[in-house]
């Protein structure tokens, strides 16, 4: 695995205070019908939207922008290399800011 040498970004607050993916709050109003809402629940009980909202709300503007400027990110984003280069893996210890990258 090719490894780049960038060492920035930060998370604010405890990145592990998860608000949870599961709340069983599928709102039937946003789907076309009751059946659509049931299909959505049938597909998965996980509701990543809830966590996403919390992360977006807590996120401090500009944090993680360094990642977008890296050659590695831009090449990955551009879709060069097809399936071989489809993966980008950001790794780091707890609390360094992986969740709040953008």
């Amino acid at each position, binding site marked *: *695995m*090719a*490894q*780049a*040498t*960038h*060492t*920035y*970004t*930060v998370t*604010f607050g405890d990145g*592990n205070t*998860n608000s*949870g*993916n*599961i709340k069983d709050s599928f709102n039937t109003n946003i*789907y*076309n019908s009751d*059946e*659509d809402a049931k*299909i*959505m629940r049938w*597909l*998965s*009980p*996980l*509701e*990543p939207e809830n*966590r*996403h909202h919390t992360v977006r709300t807590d996120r*401090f503007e*500009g*944090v*993680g922008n*360094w*990642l977008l400027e*890296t050659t*590695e*990110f831009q090449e*990955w984003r551009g*879709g060069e*290399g*097809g*399936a*071989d*280069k*489809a*993966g*980008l*893996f*950001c*790794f*780091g*210890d*707890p609390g*360094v*800011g*992986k*969740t709040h*990258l953008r």
Partner: protein
Amino acid sequence: MVAWLYCDYNVPQEQTVINIMGAILRHVAGRDIPDDIRKAFREGRRPLLADLKRMLRIAIHSLPQVFICIDALDECLPKDLPGLLGSLSDIVRESPSTRVFLTGRPHVSEVVQRYFAKAVAIPVSPNPDDIRSYVVMRLDRDDVPEAMDNGLRAEIVKIILDKMSNM
């Protein structure tokens, strides 16, 4: 189209490969539920992983480009990771323009590499500029501004940045 999922160690039992792939499919399919998904639901079958992958492939093909982001792979049960990464790798092989963005603690690198051998791995660590601007913002919002002066402000910023560089 960007589909995302945050793994959460609080609900490991719910975070099966099927449920994660189902959540991604729900995201990619959007509000216009594809007919084959509706059909499977009406037939009352539980979705199998193979069904979800097939439906996801069809949904992805109808879109210009799909990004799948999964945060905190280390918060999945280790037994689920090979199935999850293998499924994502299958999707990518069938739809090579799909991009997969993953985050996790260093120890999951090995299993990621097994399924995405040529993935770029980027180490993430705290950025002093990010920390400084955040601390300054928080100090500006302090609810006892009369207790603050420039000397104290500079000292707080310095101590926090010093502690961070020792992390």
